[in-house]
Structures are given as structure tokens and as C-alpha cells.
């Protein structure tokens, strides 16, 4: 009975956010003579690109007919011969130029360029705008959501920590969170790092929940795509990289630069490969998370877009069903990617802090490179 209820609840949630997602399109349902709506393949493609990109606005949805946006503007912080702070409302969603201290800035495809008074964008050879870009430290949508998630995590896990002061078994939401914490500790940190696991568990737990919550937020109709942004995953991977390098012991470095147990010509050959491996590992972490999340968003939005493209009674329900199916898979992927990122981080840290035996059996080197 209870199981049934849970399933019903999950289905309801799923339907809710799928329908919300589709709402983003449905407000632009084409009508006779309407031309400002998203209903062609190009427009859908652009819409998806726009969704994937970071934004200076938090937009819940836009009315294509009237051109009205429902959401709020975020602060823009630029470093361009001095700090410049203003609201992104000045851009009017890219329609106006912002003039700050006599310098014209234009918001073009979610990025800020320096332009002349007319807002001309010149294109380089590769097809991208060649205009100079100021250093953009704006509190963008992604930064905002990261802050929100950070705050949420601090509140939730701080609260969980407080519960332990009075009782040894938490109640309420702690009942759900504790097994997750235990899972990360017992399934990810302990078996992969070894006896010094405690030092790194904090990092692993933070990264795990950070990625997971952001992935799940990406499944909501809020239009979040934080973990599907290369800058975010790069930062995550970079922190893993530095933690691995700084916790590497003598054995770790020896295995990189002077591989024991192989003849010396091989040592020379192996050293550059191992050095390359040092960088490919976090690179793969970065690409994996980014690509998985981006791919998930693209698939879901494309399937929803197909409903708009086909506009008939057969394709609509069919793609709606597909979307639900993919959404369920994405729910799994959201967890899986957080798990994989954390697990591989733990694995790399474990490789760096591992105490090697002094004899080197052949099976000691079967650690994956990427």
C-alpha cells in the first residue's frame, strides 16, 4: 500500500515537472499569423542552446507573443579597467546596450561584449563574435543556484549535525540523509581510499551532494543547468586534481616519474604517459559530468521540442511518453553521475595515498588511467 503511494507520488512529481517544462514551450504555441513563437526547428534549437547556456536573468518563462519575460534580473559585475557593477535589467534581455562610464556593453547570446555606440558585433573567422569581452564576474543564474544549493546544504546538513547533539539516531529528514552520508562514507570513501579515508570524506560528501542536488535541480522546471556547464565541472575537477596532487605520497610520485618494477628504458617511456595521465584523469571527470548532464538536457528538450514541431495527436502523446521515459532515466543519471564523480575522485585520491608494498606484483598496476 505504502509502496503504491510512493510510486503515485513520484509519478505525480514527474508529470508535474514534465508539464512545467513543456509549459515553457506551450506558451509559445503557434497561432494563425503568429510569428514571434518558438515553432520552427531553428528556433527550438536556439531555445535549447539558450537553456543550456548561463544567463544573466532568472527567467521562469517568456511570453513569445508579447515578448514579456517572467523572472528577475541579476547583478552584473564586470572587471574592465576597474570594477563595474550594475543590474542586468539594463540590457533589457539583450535589446538595449548598457552604457557604463562611457563604454557600451552588449548582451549577445548570454555573453557580454564591448561594442561601439551602435552595438555592432563583428564576427571572427571561426564564426564567433570577435568583439572584446570584459572579465565577467556577474552573479549569473548558475552562480545564484550554486549559492542557493550551498545554503540549502549548509542548512540541511548543519541541522542534521545539530540533531546528533541530543540523540544518536536522527529523526525526520535526517532519517533519509543519514543513510546517504553513510553510503558515501562506506561505499565510496572507505573502500577506495583506505585507512586515511576520514580526511577526504568531507570533500567527497560535499561534492557528492552538491552535484546530486544540482543535477536534480536540473530536472525541475526552474531551467537550471549548472552541472551541464563546462566551467562548473572544470572547477570541480580542478579541486579534485589539486587534492590528489597535494595528498600524493612518495610512492605516488615515484610511480609517475620512475615506475618501479620495469626495465629502465620503459621507465623513460612511461614517465610522460603517467604525467599525461595526471591531467587526463580530472579532464575526463570534467568532460564526463558536463557531457552527461548536457546530453540529458538536450535529449529531454529535443523530445519536447518535437511535440511542437510535429503538432499532431499521434506525435504529441508519443513524445510526451518518451520524455517521461527519458526523465526517469535522467533521474537515475543524476544520481549516477554524482556517484561516479565522487567514486572516481575517491579512487584517484586512494591511488595517491596508497601505501605500496615494496615488492610489486603484476596486478598492482591495473588501475585505470582515465
Amino acid at each position, binding site marked *: 500500500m505504502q509502496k503504491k503511494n510512493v510510486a503515485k507520488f513520484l509519478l505525480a512529481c514527474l508529470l508535474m515537472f514534465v508539464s512545467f517544462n513543456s509549459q515553457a514551450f506551450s506558451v509559445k504555441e503557434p497561432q494563425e499569423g503568429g510569428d514571434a513563437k518558438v515553432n520552427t526547428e531553428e528556433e527550438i534549437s536556439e531555445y535549447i542552446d539558450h537553456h543550456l547556456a548561463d544567463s544573466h536573468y532568472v527567467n521562469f518563462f517568456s511570453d513569445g507573443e508579447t515578448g514579456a519575460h517572467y523572472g528577475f534580473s541579476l547583478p552584473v559585475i564586470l572587471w574592465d579597467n576597474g570594477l563595474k557593477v550594475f543590474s542586468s535589467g539594463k540590457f533589457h534581455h539583450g535589446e538595449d546596450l548598457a552604457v557604463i562610464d562611457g563604454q557600451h556593453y552588449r548582451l549577445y547570446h548570454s555573453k557580454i561584449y564591448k561594442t561601439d555606440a551602435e552595438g555592432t558585433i563583428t564576427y571572427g573567422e571561426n564564426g564567433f563574435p570577435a568583439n572584446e569581452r570584459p572579465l565577467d564576474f556577474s552573479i549569473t543564474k548558475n552562480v545564484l543556484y550554486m549559492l542557493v544549493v550551498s545554503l540549502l546544504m549548509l542548512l540541511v546538513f548543519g541541522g542534521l549535525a545539530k540533531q546528533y547533539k541530543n540523540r544518536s539516531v536522527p529523526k525526520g529528514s535526517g532519517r533519509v540523509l543519514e543513510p546517504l552520508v553513510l553510503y558515501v562514507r562506506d*561505499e565510496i570513501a572507505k573502500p577506495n581510499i583506505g585507512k586515511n579515508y576520514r580526511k577526504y570524506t568531507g570533500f567527497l560528501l560535499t561534492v557528492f551532494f552538491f552535484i546530486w542536488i544540482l543535477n536534480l535541480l536540473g530536472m525541475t522546471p526552474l531551467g537550471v543547468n549548472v552541472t551541464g556547464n563546462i566551467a562548473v565541472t572544470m572547477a570541480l575537477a580542478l579541486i579534485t586534481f589539486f587534492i590528489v596532487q597535494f595528498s600524493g605520497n612518495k610512492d605516488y610520485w615515484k610511480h609517475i616519474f620512475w615506475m618501479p618494477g620495469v626495465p629502465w628504458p620503459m621507465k623513460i617511456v612511461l614517465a610522460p604517459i603517467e604525467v599525461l595521465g595526471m591531467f587526463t584523469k580530472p579532464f*575526463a571527470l570534467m568532460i564526463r559530468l558536463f557531457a*552527461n548532464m548536457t546530453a540529458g538536457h538536450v535529449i529531454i528538450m529535443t523530445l519536447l521540442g518535437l511535440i511542437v514541431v510535429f503538432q499532431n495527436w499521434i506525435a504529441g502523446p508519443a513524445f510526451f511518453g518518451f520524455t517521461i521515459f527519458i526523465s526517469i532515466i535522467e533521474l537515475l543519471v543524476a544520481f549516477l553521475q554524482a556517484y561516479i564523480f565522487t567514486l572516481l575522485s575517491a579512487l584517484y585520491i586512494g591511488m595517491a595515498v596508497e601505501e605500496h608494498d615494496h615488492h610489486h606484483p603484476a596486478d598492482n598496476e591495473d588501475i585505470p588511467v582515465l
Partner: protein
Amino acid sequence: MEEALNLDMIGAGLIIIGAGFGLGKIGSAAMEGIARQPEAAGKIQTAMIIIAALLEGVAFAALFAV
């Protein structure tokens, strides 16, 4: 531009074929392993997911390089 794009697409297709083949092999080997030793299913699953993730990482890296 058009020519290069087509080659890109073929490359991407090749990557997907390779990755799909690899994933299939991982999956089949893991299934066999679990069938032979059901008590080691948990360990095999973890190893399978790790290897699948590694393969996926390589495939995605190649896809984005294209």
C-alpha cells in the same frame, strides 16, 4: 565547411559505434560474472559502473573534440 561537417558526423558516428560496442562487452561480461557468482553481484556492479563511466568519459571527450 559542409565537407568538414560531414566528416565530423562520421567521426562522431564511429565513436558512438565503438563506445556502444565497448559498453555491450562490459555489460555482457558483468552479466556473465553475476550469473556465475551471484554473491559477488555488488562488487561486479560497482566495477562495471566504474569501467562504463571511464569508457563514457573517453567517448564524450572524443565527441567534444570532434
